[in-house]
């Protein structure tokens, strides 16, 4: 089954709930079969089917509720400038976050940031693919990725200090 595990994992992270994730994946395959004529061969199948899942999520009760939450910051096109940190290589190696801490930090991200981070880091999509999947400009992909990662780093830093 094409992308079954990836779609399920993505659905799990969007909904935070296995039962809803199953509904979402089932609905995605239903819509993919029903609307396969809208898929143009030669175009990106992965972006197409992930977009179906995402759109199904956004129209679900959980999706509507999730997208009403306040984002980290205003979602402008500007890619913010990163601030340099003066970690040493040793502190970087010693300071690796635990799997649980990363999962917790990821779970705290607003869904519009979580989804781009998952598509980039887990699905290894290019910025162009993410842009097609989420239907946002590449500049916004970069901006959201930057903010998502910064929030993750701050959360993990706080967890390791606290």
């Amino acid at each position: 089954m094409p992308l079954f595990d990836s779609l399920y994992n993505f659905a799990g992270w969007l909904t935070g709930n296995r039962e809803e994730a199953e509904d979402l994946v089932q609905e995605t395959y239903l819509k993919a079969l029903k609307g396969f004529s809208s898929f143009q061969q030669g175009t990106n199948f992965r972006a197409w089917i992930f977009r179906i899942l995402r759109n199904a999520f956004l129209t679900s009760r959980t999706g509507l509720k999730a997208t009403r939450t306040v984002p980290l910051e205003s979602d402008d096109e500007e890619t913010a400038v990163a601030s340099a940190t003066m970690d040493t290589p040793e502190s970087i190696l010693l300071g690796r976050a635990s799997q649980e801490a990363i999962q917790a930090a990821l779970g705290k991200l607003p869904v519009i940031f979580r989804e781009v981070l998952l598509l980039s880091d887990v699905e290894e999509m290019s910025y162009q693919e993410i842009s097609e999947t989420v239907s946002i400009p590449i500049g916004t992909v970069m901006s959201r990725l930057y903010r998502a990662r910064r929030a993750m780093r701050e959360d993990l830093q706080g967890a390791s200090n606290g």
Partner: protein
Amino acid sequence: MASDIWQPKIDRYVDAELSEEEMRAMDAHLHECSSCAAEALRRMRLKHDTKLAARRYAPSPQFRRRIEGQVMAGQVIADRVGARRTVTWRWAAPLLAAAVMVLLVAGIMLSRSSEHARSQQLLSELTDIHVANLAASTPVDVMSSDRHTVKPWFQGKVPFTFNLPELEASPFTLVGGRLAYLDHEPGAHLIYNIGAHHISVFVFRDQPNLAHVFSARESSRDVLKFHVESWSAHELRYFVVGDASDESIHALTSMWKQAGNN
């Protein structure tokens, strides 16, 4: 500040989204700027760790079978979603058959693509170990330029034995060795110097997951600007990783291949 120009590009560097020219320029900068190099390493680590940690939700076998059955039968039951209605598309059988074919063909293409992604991930892990090792305060567990000291150290620590090449009259120096893990498998990690460059040689049991890292026709690849050579012999899989010249890495590879056949 020179770093002000480079820092905003680090995410795109880590995501391999810079142009080739920018990648080369960034590589050169990272060799000179410890602040940016540390930041790039930190972000690579977080990206890698996020990838591993975020594979959290796996479908149950029952759910997988159910969806497979529904897709293959061309019949989708939308009972849990929305209005709990059942939709049977008998009228659309030819259409659905074509749809299933599209999905299956896409599936085959994607399975190849995911195999490629998996092999890229393993190669990235190797370069990650190589880079992390360069930054470590104790890069080796056994420090010796004598192969007769280094080889016995691995006995009982890795589930195989291997030969190290004789380096006499070669430009390489053996720094030492340490244990490495790839896909939860223990292996030997040998570190060599040539000039100012470090080269890592990894030896693992040749498992099916490693056999697919390089295609049958392929013996080398460039990963994040590191040159990687790989081969298999006597049920062992070898990887040579470094940023030294391709010729140097190939020369060390040849010496290892020769030692492995003795």
